[in-house]
């Protein structure tokens, strides 16, 4: 029903574009995404399968999250009108990934959202950096798509079915499929594109890249009964945590800093994939990560600063926003009484319960190293005096309202550990 609603709204928007009612377009996009997400209720327990679509609690939650995050991304600031339409359409792609019960349906969804990501990433195509970043993303998503199809073919050869679930999860080799998804979220050893692309794309595009795909893929992975080779899983998790932590250690560029932080956070998320209830650990982690990242994006949407040293003295210039960001940094580190602590706690407990004590130790070490670069930002904002390059603030941004809402969530979840959706 919601899909019909979205498509209907898309048509309305196209009419609006033609008639140049740009403000209306933006309102329609935001409201339709947010309302669509709220209206989409969780289904009853158990899974229902309607040929190519599966409907169950987790996928519903995924869809709700996609809609709300998409609405918030559009709320962050004014963008080109076609971008807003693309974002709305991309949500369809994500939804197909969430609820698709056939591998090809999921593939369609992946390609749909990849196309949107490419379009957004390349921007108007005027800047060489943006064009380069867009093409890099195209290459990466192409390779990922190829791997995925390879995996689907292999799986079909083994099982004779293109379905994901019939009465239960259908087994078979899914290494390539998982590998393609891993490439999309940017974990070791296929993480190198993240920092490159994040550096090249515009800030507006960054808001789309940073959260949305992680939420979609992370949620999707929770419903797949994946059998991992232990060695591979250890390499991916440990490598992502360590490289993400070390890479961001001395990083000056804020974009690349976000990139390394993302790699590290994805490593933690995958730690919870070992066994047991993935919704409890992995989905929880990705939802908390999304909340925290929205705060950072909300804060950054109004800034022109590019480097860490330009943030010096921010604590005095914008005390309220700086406090919000400080709390979020501590939450990213995993400090208690904030949501980030519970998310890390859950994933590490999952790995320890399954006997992977070394994973827990690596998680702690990564937290310590990673904590340094989160605190470095706080140090720059509050404890340093002189700023070399001064930049003005951007106007007409709604980042602050998103920051405030997300921050309240961080603190509430931190005090009383609870699921978000």
């Amino acid at each position, binding site marked *: 029903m919601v899909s019909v609603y979205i498509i209907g709204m898309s048509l309305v928007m196209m009419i609006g574009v033609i008639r140049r009612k740009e403000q209306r377009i933006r309102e329609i996009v935001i409201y339709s995404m947010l309302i669509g997400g709220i209206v989409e209720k969780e289904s009853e327990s158990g899974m229902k399968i309607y040929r190519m679509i599966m409907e169950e609690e987790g996928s519903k939650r995924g869809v709700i999250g996609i809609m709300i995050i998409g609405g918030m991304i559009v709320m962050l600031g004014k963008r080109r009108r076609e971008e807003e339409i693309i974002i709305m359409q991309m949500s369809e792609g994500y939804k197909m990934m969430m609820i698709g019960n056939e591998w090809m349906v999921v593939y369609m969804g992946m390609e749909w959202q990849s196309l949107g990501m490419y379009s957004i990433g390349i921007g108007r195509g005027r800047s060489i950096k943006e064009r380069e970043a867009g093409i890099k993303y195209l290459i990466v998503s192409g*390779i990922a798509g190829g*791997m995925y199809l*390879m995996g689907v073919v*292999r799986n079909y050869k083994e099982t004779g079915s293109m379905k994901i679930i019939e009465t239960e999860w259908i087994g*078979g*080799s*899914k*290494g*390539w499929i*998982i*590998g393609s998804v*891993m*490439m999309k979220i940017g974990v070791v*050893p*296929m*993480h*190198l*594109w993240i*920092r*490159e692309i994040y550096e090249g794309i515009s800030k507006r595009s960054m808001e789309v890249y940073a959260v949305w795909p992680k939420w979609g893929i992370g949620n999707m992975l929770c419903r797949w009964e994946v*059998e*991992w*080779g232990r*060695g*591979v899983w250890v*390499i991916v998790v440990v490598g992502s945590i360590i*490289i993400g932590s*070390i*890479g961001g*250690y*001395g*990083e000056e560029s804020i974009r690349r800093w976000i990139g390394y932080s993302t790699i590290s956070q994805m490593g933690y998320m995958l730690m919870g994939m070992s066994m047991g209830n993935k919704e409890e650990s992995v989905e929880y982690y990705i939802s908390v990560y999304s909340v925290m990242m929205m705060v950072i994006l909300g804060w950054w949407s109004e800034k022109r600063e590019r480097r860490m040293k330009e943030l010096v003295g921010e604590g005095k210039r914008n005390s309220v926003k700086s406090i919000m960001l400080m709390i979020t940094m501590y939450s990213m580190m995993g400090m208690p009484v904030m949501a980030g602590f519970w998310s890390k706690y859950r994933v590490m407990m999952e790995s320890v319960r399954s006997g992977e004590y070394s994973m827990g130790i690596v998680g702690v070490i990564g937290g310590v*190293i990673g904590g340094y670069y989160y605190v470095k930002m706080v140090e720059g904002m509050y404890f340093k005096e002189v700023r070399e390059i001064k930049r003005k603030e951007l106007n007409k941004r709604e980042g602050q309202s998103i920051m405030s809402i997300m921050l309240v969530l961080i603190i509430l979840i931190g005090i009383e550990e609870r699921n978000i959706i």
Partner: protein
Amino acid sequence: MMPIIGGVIGLVMGRKIGGEGSSRLNIRSMRWSVVMISMELYEVVINGVKKEVRMWEWMREGVERVECGVIEEREVVEMMWMVVVVGSIVEEYSRWYMKEEGERVRFMSIVSIFIGSMLILVGSENMLQMYIGWEGIGVCSYILISYWSSRSETSKAGMKAMVINRIGDMGIMLGIGKGYVSYGSVSYGVMKSVVIEEDRIMGIMIIMGVMTKSSQMGMQTWLSDAMEGPTPVSALIHAATLVTAGVYVVIRMEGIIGGKEIMIGIGGGSIVYIGMLGVYAQDIKKIIAYSTGSQLGYMVLSVGVESSNNSISHVINHGMVKGMLFMSAGGIIHSRKEEQDIRKMGGGVMRVSKMGVIIGSMGIMGIEYSSGYESKEEIIRESSMSRYGEISSELGVCITSYYSIRMIKRVIVSEGKKRREEEEEEGMKRSIMWMSIIGVIIGYMKREWEREEWEEEIGKKEKEMMMIGVVLGIYKEKIKGRRIGRWIGKKWYNEVWQNRWIGRRVEEMCREIVEGIDRKILEECGGKGSREMMEVMERVVRRRGNVSKYGIGMVIGIIMWGWSCG
């Protein structure tokens, strides 16, 4: 909680309400506490009711719970009553004594918080809650002793008190842990119900706390130095409350901890060891301080001979009397323009302070019908079961009389230089009078009500020892010419051997640890070394621009996933 609430409010709002306002607030909160605890005293002591008030569950370890609450037994409520009565009188006294001091707000508030901590210690039903009070009184006493922090001697005295008491705190902490391991609980009631054999090791650990807090032999050096603080601090903390905390804890743990013979040894030894220091001292406050240490020896000895009732009785009596003695000494010092040397006192008219010194000294000596008589007499009687205890307690009677009479002679009786004395403050006079009245009444009541039919009155031996002490006090004040005088003058070389044998060696060991381990090994493995390692690793990870390496990464990933997972 009332004293703590009053203290905190006084501290926070001190700037608004001023010194006078803060004093009144604190005094009023203390008076309310006196009223409430008196009501509880009536119920528990007179009517014989036993109460247990549980406030909240603090922590849980499996089935074992630690709850915060108050237990109201006879000895607990009596002790609480003594603490708040002495506390409220001393606060009233401080209001006038510290009238011209700048930081009065801080002083009065910390005194209230101290009394609140002492009440927590006394009323607790488990060792962990007791430990909160224990630490609270330690911290407050440090702040109060170093009140005049601009003087270096005062700061050093405060630090010394803190450091020496820390040793005892460590013992108490270990004792709590040992108690939990041995008995599976930290609650007094539960421990007493499951005990089969008294835990000697736990007893030794707790005795460490007693030795330092109650200033027993070997660990008494901090108490005399603590006289650098204001007199009200000495009256409250170093007479009635803090120094008795250790003894009180041991009394509460009777039947649980062993090491009774150690207590007899320490108590008996302290009576003589510390008492002799009082004979030699010239500072009036130090004489009273050493007298406190010596009397605490009686209390510890009493616990050692399994006469805890007498010990608690002596704690209460002694607290009243010694508090009054300190306040009287403070009045005399105040009137003599801060002169504390008894050799320069004497002469002048008889004032309330001087009467207080006489009444207090009588109580300490244990003269009949004075407040200290009954409890001291019982202790001496009970200590006769140990030969060592008997000898030391009787020698103690002689020594106590010696320094008390010496002090009275020098301060009151002798013809000193004619000097203009300042008038005593009304408030101070009132406080001293109240304390002496209460002390005398309690002494009379205890003499008449609680004393059983004795076979004999105070023994002849004790009377003889007292007379010897009195005669020595009158005629033989000066002993410094002899070798024993030199030993006592150096405080039995206590500080010398502590510094030489312990302090210096600990300092050398710490220097080796800092230089060798901390600055070399830990730095290389820790901050400095890890930073260098991180910088190298970071340069490798952040290397950019090498497209072939990116490609290799992709290929490795593809192979890894394809081959390992099927």
